């Protein structure tokens, strides 16, 4: 049986809306414009201290956006923590899964380090590296490690705040020494970006793993190494 609202009106309305949006996008892309931002950005990549255009946009040209995005991640985690403690978690994995996890987690951590470093000149960077660390944490949690390999709450808090802290303090210090907020001095850009990305990687990894736990980590016995 055909219900007119559900089967005709809403779908055709959505199709019309999608068509309108697609048409606007088509007009927007084909329209006459002058210098586009992407070309300007590509031309300035050599001045940014890194040769990967994505990293130079995220960590240099539009670093302030990235700073606030890291703050968004932190906010999400704090919001999750405000709702209560984490559930009991999964039971301890049997030997096969445990053996696989024991092999994969170090590999993930290693790949995260590689991703972080390679981000300067090829696809990669703090978010990708952090996602790998987070995946390592999720794997540990699935295999029954109670806190996903994260340290106790007292030490986890500085860890999740580290990325935003290093980023923001770098910005303010650069303003104090006279360059302006998040204005990297020539020559130092590469190293400052690397320091910020390293801190961000650790925080992103810890935040994602902690968010997966779905609540504040259990207070007692911190399990093994930090993700």
């Amino acid at each position, binding site marked *: 049986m055909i219900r007119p609202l559900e089967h005709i009106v809403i779908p055709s309305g959505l199709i019309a809306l999608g068509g309108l949006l697609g048409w606007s996008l088509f007009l927007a892309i084909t329209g006459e414009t002058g210098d586009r*931002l992407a070309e300007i950005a590509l031309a300035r990549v050599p001045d940014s201290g890194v040769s990967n255009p994505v990293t130079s946009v995220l960590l240099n040209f*539009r670093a*302030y956006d990235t700073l*606030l995005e890291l703050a968004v991640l*932190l906010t999400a985690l704090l919001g999750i923590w405000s709702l209560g403690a984490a559930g009991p978690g999964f039971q301890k994995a049997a030997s096969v899964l445990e053996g696989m996890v024991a092999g994969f987690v170090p590999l993930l951590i290693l790949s995260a380090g590689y991703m972080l470093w390679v981000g300067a000149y090829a696809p990669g960077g703090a978010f990708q590296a952090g996602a790998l660390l987070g995946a390592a944490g999720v794997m540990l949690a699935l295999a029954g490690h109670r806190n996903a390999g994260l340290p106790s709450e007292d030490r986890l*808090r500085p860890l999740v705040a580290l990325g935003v802290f290093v980023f923001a*303090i770098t910005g303010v210090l650069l303003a104090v020494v006279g360059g302006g*907020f998040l204005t990297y001095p020539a020559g130092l850009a590469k190293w400052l970006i690397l320091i910020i990305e390293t801190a961000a990687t650790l925080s992103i990894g810890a935040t994602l793993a902690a968010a997966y736990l779905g609540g504040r980590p259990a207070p007692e016995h911190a399990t093994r190494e930090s993700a």
Partner: protein
Amino acid sequence: MIDALPLAVTLPLIGALAVTVWPAHARGLGLAGALITAVSALTVTTEVWSRGALRADLGGWGAPLGIALEADGLSAAFLAMANLVALAVSVYAGGYFKRETARHFWPLWLLLWSALNGLFLAADLFNLYVTLELLGLSAAALGALTGTREAVAANLRYLLVGLLGSMSYLLGVALVYAAYGVLDIGLVAEAVEPGPVAWTAMTLMIGGLILKAALFPMHFWLPPAHANAPAPVSAALSALVVKAAFYLALRLWLDVFAPVLGEAAANLLGILGAGAVVWGSWRALRAERLKLLAAYSTVAQMGYLFIAFPLLAATPPGLARENLLAAVVLLALTHGFAKAGLFLAAGMVQKTAGHDRIDELGGAAQALPAATFAIGLAGVALIGLPPSGTFLAKWMMLEQAMILGLWWWLVVMMVGTLLAAAYIFRVLSRAFNREPTPYRFVNDASTELPALLLGLIATFGLGIAAQPLWRLLEQGAFG
């Protein structure tokens, strides 16, 4: 000298990190962070006041490539209001939350504050999206702090609605970027030209924002979310967070899409605003709980702000339009102070009485003269009685509607004002219906004085001393 603009965003952020790392000292560190933030933001406002519009190119890249922060009269006015209200809310929260909740309140609160300052100062369409995300996420998390089932459900809905609004805004930004290749507000304003692209982008962006600003009939999420949040959070949500969405809609309307607009769009917003005024006021009158009344009153007050759009669209550029714009800003600022004061006082009443059912408030309100007085003052400003800022603002809007011959807006505003008087007096009459002698005027200084102060600013400060606002708004146009 260090640029004050990025500091107003970064200082609350660093404060939030400090309370995240040392939750045991959340209250002390949080209050210190609040004070420093407010000082830095008010510095921005005084700088704009004395030197004109400010701009900071972050990263030193300059307009199309990098991101800029900018403060003109409009943003400086909202910034000052938001930071004064937030400071009062912070002082109140210092005495309101127990230790366990305070651990969660302070980091999220300072993050929200950072997002607010970032939003008022942003000059880049994509950066505005990031601040909207930060704002929506922290606001929903704060709203759920009471942990009750209703609060969590209402704020989950708030979060999802907020995300929908942000997504719609982002889609509009993507369209603008695809068409014009720039994101800086000033550059987009230069590039934008009438046509289907600009029209669709405007609809998406302003549509997303009015969802966040809870404009009727998209207000359904607001009353439960605001009424179930802890009192200081309700105050911030109602006074500041919805106001931020309105600010951004106004900013886009005035600075970016000015050449694209038709009167039809303005009239549509005005009609929705009129619906909000009537429906919100009516529901406020019928509300059984004080905080629900305050929340519906927010729906109504947001309506007045949107009625300004058709008036602005119909007024030719010149002194009359500038006056009208200043009146709208004055209305928004006064509502910020008044509604925050009302929610803080209501929270005090609720805490003392153990409930906030209006019909049973008599004795409880009598025991709290300062809180009741604050409700009265806030009420004066919400109704729009002289000498409040609302009176002046509504008067100027009514006058302009008369001059333009758009008398129907006048009728709506009159009806809304009458209904506002009815719902405020309904509360006050309950507060005075028994006669035990008040014990003390002020019972708990740290929670009652902020509410009282906000009420005083709304009623006397902004009404009698509204002149400076006119001067501030003259300070430079954006872009």
